[in-house]
């Protein structure tokens, strides 16, 4: 029997690195991952330093907290301040800046904002506070959305409970990036836990339509390196397919039950991504028949909106995919370029001076999935 520790084993890591070094590259390769946890593992174990010259692994938009729009945060802020609703949200979300401040600022001004571990905790808070409106400000990708969907499926949700869904989907953002002109990517490393839920089939598009090697990888150093090695081999051989190097958790079909839960509860809609813009079919909005649980419906009368524009009260910007929502990124912050892998935190003059985790200037310095925060934590101040 094996234990998870083998996937951190130094000798195995060294062996894989030697294997990677033996591959004679035909040209330099750039592999993008789209997951904050991958960025953490890469930095924590210094994997970039181990890779040979010519192999670059860059971070894409893998931070759900970072890509949640300022407008949605402002909406939650208003609900907390003006409607006196209890806002329950996950981890770092309470520290993300917006034009009115962060939810933590609302808290210091007397609002009831609570950090919860999972959606069930928010339901419990609603049960314990029957006289208050309790809103779960739900950010996250498919892995989080299935849990939220599962609680909406419950028949006995308390009446004072609703959800502000800011859920986003991974594959549409990857497809969007491939359309960004001068960003040359040779392959994708895709997050194992998202594929655990959604399966590999929806990623076939990348090898088939874009000739992108696409590898599902786990979250230990060995997992990441196996993923990188598989990608390099495909690139070198001039082939492109979906590969799974995280077999212990990823079944090709994913978790059908979790997929069904998402399908039953959410519609797939266009959504804004902070710093990136509007991406078609990339957000999850509660279905019409679940609208009693939808905070946007409960607290606002707007009938239609694109996900990410608060409650639909903001005017929709002329919507070319590149156009940015208002109040999106503070002047001088380069998160919009960090999130699409165009620049690195070190390229931002504010990194580590004006912008630090204790006083984040941009969203990428807030969450532990944010590239700037990760680089700061692991002291990647210079390469």
């Amino acid at each position, binding site marked *: 029997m094996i234990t998870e520790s083998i996937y951190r084993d130094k000798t195995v890591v060294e062996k894989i690195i030697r294997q990677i070094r033996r591959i004679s590259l035909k040209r330099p390769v750039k592999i993008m991952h789209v997951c904050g946890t991958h960025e953490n593992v890469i930095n924590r174990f210094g994997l970039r330093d181990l890779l040979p010259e010519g192999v670059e692994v860059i971070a894409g938009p893998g931070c759900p907290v970072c890509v949640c729009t300022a407008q949605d945060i402002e909406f939650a802020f208003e609900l907390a301040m003006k409607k006196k609703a209890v806002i329950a949200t996950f981890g770092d979300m309470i520290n993300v800046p917006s034009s009115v401040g962060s939810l933590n600022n609302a808290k210091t001004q007397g609002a009831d904002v609570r950090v919860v571990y*999972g959606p069930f905790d928010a339901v419990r808070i609603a049960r314990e506070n029957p006289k208050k409106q309790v809103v779960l400000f739900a950010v996250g990708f498919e892995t989080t959305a299935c*849990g939220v969907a599962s609680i909406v499926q419950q028949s006995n949700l308390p009446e004072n409970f609703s959800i502000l869904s800011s859920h986003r989907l991974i594959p549409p953002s990857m497809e969007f990036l491939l359309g960004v002109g001068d960003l040359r990517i040779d392959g994708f490393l895709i997050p194992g836990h998202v594929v655990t839920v959604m399966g590999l089939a929806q990623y076939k598009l990348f090898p088939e339509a874009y000739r992108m090697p696409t590898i599902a990888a786990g979250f230990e150093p060995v997992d990441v390196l196996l993923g990188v090695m598989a990608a390099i081999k495909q690139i070198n051989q001039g082939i492109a397919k979906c590969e799974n190097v995280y077999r212990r958790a990823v079944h090709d079909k994913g978790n059908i039950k979790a997929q069904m839960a998402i399908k039953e509860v959410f519609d797939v809609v266009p959504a804004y991504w902070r710093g990136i813009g509007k991406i078609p079919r990339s957000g999850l909005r509660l279905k019409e028949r679940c609208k009693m649980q939808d905070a946007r419906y409960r607290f606002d009368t707007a009938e239609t909106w694109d996900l990410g524009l608060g409650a639909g009260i903001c005017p929709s910007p002329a919507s070319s995919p590149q156009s940015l929502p208002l109040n999106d990124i503070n002047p001088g912050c380069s998160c919009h370029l960090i999130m699409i892998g165009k620049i690195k935190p070190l390229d931002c003059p504010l990194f580590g001076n004006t912008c630090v985790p204790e006083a984040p200037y941009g969203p990428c310095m807030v969450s532990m999935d944010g590239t700037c925060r990760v680089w700061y934590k692991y002291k990647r101040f210079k390469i």
Partner: protein
Amino acid sequence: MCLAIPSKVVEIKGAVATIDVHGVRRDINITLLPEEIGIGDYVLVHAGFALQKIDREAGDDAIKLINEVLEGD
């Protein structure tokens, strides 16, 4: 927040299982799991939900694969 941690199941009561991650115990919901689990199994957990049972045999396979690939090393 995107972390999905493999965790050992130590108790099961209906829709709720207790997991142990490095000595810390926590209750999680197991209704989204597509297959039955038992005590001692490992599951991938995210935001209070078990998302998938970790397949030890596939894990063993992967290690075998690693060793084979690296044999000549």
